[in-house]
């Protein structure tokens, strides 16, 4: 009985995570129609996308079961994302000319 019950509990967990991800995706659509400026909208949407991605990584891709691999993936990915940010501020210089133009 116990061996038969295990996969069931796994499926139950996946269904809960699935509905959480769907709900967060729905929130993104709500944010898209809210009356806020683009920077705030981008920040909120990225925040929600990161939560969605974290849920998928931890539970759908089973990173929560392997701490070592989890840290490897997180550190590697964060490093790559940070290195991509070096030229980001230049886009403000192109649109506004200040203050990074100086």
């Amino acid at each position, binding site marked *: 009985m116990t061996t038969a019950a295990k996969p069931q509990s796994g499926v139950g967990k996946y269904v809960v995570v699935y509905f959480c991800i769907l709900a967060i995706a729905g929130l993104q659509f709500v944010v898209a129609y809210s009356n806020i400026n683009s920077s705030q909208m981008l920040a909120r949407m990225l925040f929600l*996308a990161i939560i969605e991605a974290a849920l998928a990584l931890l539970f759908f891709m089973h990173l929560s079961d392997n701490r070592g691999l989890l840290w490897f993936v997180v550190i590697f990915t964060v490093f790559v994302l940070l290195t991509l940010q070096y030229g980001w501020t230049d886009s403000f210089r192109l649109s506004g000319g200040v203050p990074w133009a100086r």
Partner: protein
Amino acid sequence: MSHADTMGSHSAGMTAGPAFSVPAKKMAMWLFIIADTATFAACLVAYGFIRNATPNWPRPFHSITNVALMTFILITSSLTMLLGIEAAKSGDKARAFRWTMITAAGGALFALLHIREWLALIDEGMTLFKNPWGTGLFGATFFGVTGLHLLHVTGGVIALIAVGIRYQRGRYSADDLEITGLYWHFVDLVWMFVVPLVYLMNLGH
């Protein structure tokens, strides 16, 4: 030195086990996913850079119905993939194959909806270099980012069908199905970032 001795010393050298206790094939998939994350991140950062630096950025999307449906299908296909993997782990080959094919069908439906959306935009006059709403860069970035994702979805559907059939015939194991599932979840994960950045931020109010 006998063959057994050679094998023994070889095994002794491998006592540390695979990195992070992950089988080599799965580790290879994780490394591919990390590399692909860098590719998509570079594309999305470049897209954000261009969008931020361009004053007359178009906002051509007036309905969220299509993108919401595509999102629902892709997230649901991740769940069906998990159901397939769970069935495979419990040894139920028929059920695992069925869920894997349902996942592939979800991916194919997503791709069809995506192509339909592309054709509608092309019909409105949008190409890689020009569109009726504003800067021509929009078409290049939109088709570039969503095209790269669509290419991944198409590749994923082909992989799911190929691995699913080989799993059913007994050539591949449940682990192989799980590794293909990792890729499929990654495709879903990327979409979670493409939707807000490329679609929802460009909604015409």
